């Protein structure tokens, strides 16, 4: 029996279909208060004065916190740059910045109290456009820079760019000028990708209580329990062991819950109130709390008439909003892949992470890659059209191969990208060159197919630790700080442990993150968990396995090599009735059949890039994926119907093929939203569509008529069972595949701004018609 590789049902399924799974907002602690915040109505302003006296007088108000309550604490925090105050200090930097927070006996009282607070602001000049903000002379958003505590970021990022540019990262090789001189043709275009919402249906929420002055307990749906623990400890000047972060079930994350968002304020309120405080954000507040970076991309490509790419120069400006979070690291993730998964001998790739006076962004599935992929895959189709080449052939001609040396100087392994491309081409019935010109048409309807390929790194260097405990009754506990947020991590890790211990998956329980108990994990992000935590769990299980075999060898007086693990314990190979059960093995090991057997592992991947040269090891492993799509565009209305989408990911090894399918289906659907209608709109820094009434998320009506999730399995030599990761692997490929399908339906009309709203398509058609008249 092999647990790995089978579509084992989710271990949390029963609780979820019964509504019994507990999420953070379901937790009620005795004496718990409810929080509400007063947020800045200005995009940029000096904070002159705060008067909370009327609010404080309201019966039922227990605690009010302002900047004055941060005295003696470390008021600024952040994953890479400590630039975000727990509460506004001298100024506010975006609409929605938290200025005051109130804890009251009831939610309504807290809401009423917030209305009674008076704040005096002195508006400052603000900047909203990412390119403008990067220019000299733009209003400065952070007067001081706060150095990060994390050595890894100090050493591996360029954080001293000046002005509103928080960081710059450069990668490159060859001689770019010579490359362009050698090119037969040069294309240069710009692309824009707007900010979008993560759209997790569970809002941000936290519950905090101080059990004693040095002991804080926080419940939160955080993707990064240990990182949050570190940040809270630093803010409140207490040891990390004084902070206990517990992560209940999580109602979707997609990157939006990777960093501290409302936990510091909730903890501050609980400290002042001396009682537990729960804060559940309203959906309007979620819109002001996190989003995907918007970006502007400038891309110049030199190529030969036979289709070979010879030079590429790319500049990308990522809009961080008011605070950096992991923006500089995410912008770096966009830099070295900005020329795509292609062999390009000469390139200069630069990404800028830039502050603006918009609400803060943060990592979202795909981090910095969707922005560059939208540009380079649109360009590939334009080049193919210009050369009269089949876009598949053009890509295959340039795609990276196993063992190639990448722009970072590292050799690539597990590079199944050509197979991914062939799979999706076949999945949408791609016929070759004619797909760029001969789409089916009927009345005002035009059909088109499009493709895209991408590559992405996983955050490196990082570490994950896990412990496996085998109980006396043969049941197993895996202790891990990996967050289950729907992606199936508990099921996947249970499969890995069960497989190594030769027992049924049902016998393995996977813990929720609880920093009192579960060991270190970098974070549940970057689709790194199957690889990193999977390796840690596998090695911890191996330690248990070794101890069982040793006890078996001792008890049965046979050689260890003659033993195997069965569902109930250890047995002699080929002699099924000669064995020892777990209680018997414990008796051999400890002299009594009680106790437990414990294994643990700290799995670490070293690496990272030198920020001066852009060289080193960017990724523990690389994602390669492809997407193909067929659409039908109505040229009168601009409305697009999605007929067929096929995605393919090189996952290394599918630990659970069904969960891989579900992750790809989710990526595909989030990307369809971003392709066609999702866009956060701001006017002078004010949100225009900041509720789910105005900002639509894809519904069942938007699901393509046909969807296929295809997999390539090129085993990774260091992955558990050869596995890499899957969660965000395909999302960057979907939007350009859709864009190329629309362009092909319209005879080569590339719309370079997203989303592809009907009016934008109609306008582009009208513009083309006017220009050809």
């Amino acid at each position, binding site marked *: 029996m092999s647990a790995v590789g089978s579509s084992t049902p989710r271990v949390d399924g029963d609780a979820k279909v019964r509504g019994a799974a507990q999420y953070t907002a379901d937790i009620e602690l005795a004496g718990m208060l409810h929080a509400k915040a007063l947020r800045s109505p200005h995009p940029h302003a000096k904070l002159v004065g705060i008067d909370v006296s009327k609010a404080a007088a309201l019966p039922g108000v227990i605690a009010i916190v302002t900047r004055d309550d941060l005295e003696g604490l470390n008021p600024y925090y952040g994953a890479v740059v400590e630039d975000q105050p727990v509460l506004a200090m001298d100024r506010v930097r975006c609409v929605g910045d938290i200025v005051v927070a109130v804890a009251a006996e009831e939610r309504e009282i807290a809401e009423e109290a917030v209305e009674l607070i008076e704040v005096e602001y002195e508006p400052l000049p603000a900047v909203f456009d990412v390119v403008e903000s990067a220019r000299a002379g733009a209003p400065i958003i952070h007067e001081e820079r706060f150095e990060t505590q994390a050595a890894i970021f100090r050493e591996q990022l360029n954080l001293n760019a000046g002005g509103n540019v928080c960081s710059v990262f450069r990668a490159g090789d060859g001689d770019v000028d010579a490359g362009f001189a050698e090119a037969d043709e040069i294309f240069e275009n710009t692309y824009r990708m707007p900010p979008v919402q993560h759209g997790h249906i*569970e809002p941000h929420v936290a519950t905090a209580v101080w059990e004693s002055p040095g002991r804080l307990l926080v419940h939160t749906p955080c993707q990064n329990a240990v990182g949050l623990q570190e940040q809270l400890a630093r803010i409140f000047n207490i040891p990390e062991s004084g902070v206990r972060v517990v992560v209940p079930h999580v109602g979707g994350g997609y990157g939006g819950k990777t960093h501290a968002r409302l936990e510091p304020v909730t903890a501050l309120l609980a400290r002042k109130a001396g009682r537990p405080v729960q804060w559940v954000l309203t959906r309007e507040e979620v819109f002001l709390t996190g989003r995907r970076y918007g970006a502007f991309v400038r891309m110049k490509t030199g190529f030969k008439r036979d289709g070979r790419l010879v030079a590429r120069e790319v500049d990308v400006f990522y809009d961080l909003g008011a605070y950096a979070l992991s923006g500089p690291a995410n912008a770096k993730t966009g830099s070295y892949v900005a020329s795509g998964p292609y062999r390009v001998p000469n390139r200069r790739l630069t990404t800028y992470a830039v502050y603006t006076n918009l609400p803060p962004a943060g990592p979202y599935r795909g981090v910095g890659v969707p922005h560059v992929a939208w540009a380079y895959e649109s360009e590939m189709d334009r080049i193919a059209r210009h050369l009269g080449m089949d876009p598949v052939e053009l890509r295959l001609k340039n795609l990276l191969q196993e063992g190639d040396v990448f722009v970072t100087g590292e050799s690539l392994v597990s590079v199944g990208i050509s197979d991914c491309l062939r799979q999706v081409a076949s999945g949408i019935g791609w016929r070759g060159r004619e797909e760029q010109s001969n789409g089916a048409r009927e009345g005002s309807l035009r059909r088109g197919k499009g493709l895209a390929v991408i590559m992405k790194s996983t955050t490196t260097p990082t570490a994950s630790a896990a412990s496996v405990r085998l109980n006396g009754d043969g049941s197993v506990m895996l202790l891990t700080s990996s967050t289950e947020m729907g992606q199936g991590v508990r099921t996947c890790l249970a499969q890995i442990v069960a497989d190594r211990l030769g027992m049924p998956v049902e016998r393995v329980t996977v813990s929720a993150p609880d920093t009192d108990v579960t060991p270190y994990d970098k974070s549940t992000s970057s689709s790194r968990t199957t690889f990193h935590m999977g390796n840690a769990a596998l090695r911890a299980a191996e330690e248990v396995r070794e101890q069982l075999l040793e006890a078996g060898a001792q008890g049965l007086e046979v050689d260890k090599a003659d033993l195997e693990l069965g569902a109930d314990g250890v047995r002699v190979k080929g002699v099924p009735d000669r064995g020892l059960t777990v209680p018997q093995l414990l008796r051999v090991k400890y002299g009594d059949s009680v106790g437990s057997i414990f294994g643990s592992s700290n799995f670490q991947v070293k690496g990272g890039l030198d920020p001066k040269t852009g060289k080193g090891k960017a990724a523990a492993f690389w994602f390669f994926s492809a997407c193909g799509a067929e659409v039908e565009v109505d040229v009168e209305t601009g409305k697009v119907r999605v007929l067929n989408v096929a995605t393919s990911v090189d996952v290394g090894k599918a630990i659970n093929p069904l969960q891989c399918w579900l992750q790809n289906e989710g990526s595909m659907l989030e990307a369809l939203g971003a392709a066609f209608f999702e866009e956060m709109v701001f006017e002078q820094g004010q949100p225009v569509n900041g509720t789910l009434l105005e900002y639509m998320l894809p519904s069942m009506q938007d699901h393509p008529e046909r969807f296929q999730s295809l997999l390539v399995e090129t085993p990774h030599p260091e992955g558990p069972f050869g596995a890499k990761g899957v969660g965000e692997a395909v999302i960057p490929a979907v939007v350009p595949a859709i864009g190329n399908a629309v362009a092909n339906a319209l005879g080569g009309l590339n719309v370079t701004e997203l989303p592809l709203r009907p009016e934008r398509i109609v306008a582009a058609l009208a513009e083309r018609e006017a220009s050809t008249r």
Partner: protein
Amino acid sequence: MRHLINANVNGRERELSVKSNQTLLEVLRDDLRLKGTREGCSVGVCGSCTVLVDGKPVSSCLMLASNAEGKEVLTIEGLGQAGNLDPVQQAFLDHQAFQCGFCTPGMIMAVKGLLNENAKPDEAEVRDYLSGNICRCGTYVEVMAAIEDLTAKP
């Protein structure tokens, strides 16, 4: 201002003291501690707070609790329990029609409402009916498969 209302919640007749501006969702979660019904958007568009009122799906974040007077309210907790799941819950399990699970109770109640109204919906009817229940994890193919399975049974 508070009112006393009588409503049947999950098969049990209850007398409830509710505030005039209190939503059914608030009464279910805060007063009756039925936490399986969840708030996602508070404006009636995400569907995660869906419950059945007299057999029909309702966004409980939009319905005033006082309007539940004399009505039958069914939440996920009243639908089926461990070892005795409703066929819809079982079909969701069989098809793994969920990921994070946050929207799942609302989605299941909406499917229950759909099948109460239409025992054999076709795919277009399913997509239309459930378009008010958002699953951001994107598990729609599996929900459709679960419904197909439920309606294929004689």
